[in-house]
């Protein structure tokens, strides 16, 4: 068991750390690329069950890559982490990437609504791309699609 936990911890150490300063966004992007490289070398953990959020910035746009499962258990860090990024950077648009997400419940709706309100207060907006059938049903039921624009691809979402 201890051995198992050790390997678990080993596999999850590639979490993006935050030292957010505008200049650090490039650093984050590089870290992200490094993470991808590492996880692929580690047997593609990122694609199997990556419980963490990863962040990517393009100008005033923040792209949040959501994990495979978006439930209460792994939603908890998102508010804190995005608050941190928003407080130190001029972000006008948040884009949520659902392409890896196979499951979400009302916890996902809660966090999306929360982020929407936060962005609406500062005159920004929120968009979504890559949602599969299960996520899409939940997004519709939660009324999210009335608030956020849905795009087919990352490129379309970034262009707006």
């Amino acid at each position, binding site marked *: 068991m201890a051995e198992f936990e050790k390997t678990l911890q080993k596999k999850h150490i590639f979490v993006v750390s935050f030292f957010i300063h505008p200049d650090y966004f490039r650093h984050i992007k590089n870290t992200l690329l490094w993470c991808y490289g590492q996880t692929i070398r580690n047997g593609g953990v990122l694609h199997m069950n990556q419980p963490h959020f990863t962040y990517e910035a393009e100008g005033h746009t923040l792209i949040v890559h959501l994990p495979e499962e978006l*439930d*209460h258990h792994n*939603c908890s860090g998102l*508010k804190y982490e995005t608050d941190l990024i928003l407080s130190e950077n001029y972000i006008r648009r948040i884009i949520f990437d659902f392409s890896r997400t196979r*499951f979400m*419940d*009302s*916890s996902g*709706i*809660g*966090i999306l*609504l*929360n982020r929407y*309100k936060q962005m609406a207060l500062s005159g920004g907006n929120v968009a979504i791309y890559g949602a599969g*059938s*299960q996520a899409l*049903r*939940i997004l519709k*039921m*939660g009324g999210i699609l009335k608030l956020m624009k849905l795009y087919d691809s990352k490129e379309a979402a970034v262009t707006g």
Partner: protein
Amino acid sequence: MARLDPTLEEMEDVKTAVSEAVTNAVIHGYQGKGGIIYIEVTVEGQEITVSIRDTGVGITDIKQAMEPMFTTDPDGVRSGMGFSFMEAFMDQVEVKSEPDKGTAVIMKKKISR
């Protein structure tokens, strides 16, 4: 549940409803402090019954708790849609609760074939 030969959508429905009930038990029942959540599944004909029970703080006003968008969350992160989702995804949702004793959510769904 597999022997009922459910569609992918029916599987997802049950999974979502269970996730909602378990989340409620973790956040409300045990106030995030941890505890045992009992999950029981029975199958009768084409009907699946899932019971999710905790021995946490219980719910004083079940009717209010089940109202759409009702939440006790002060941070504005919780949607308050948990019970609404359970009701939307299952055919029948019954909640039994007693303060300081715990809560049981019993959900039924007919699986079409």
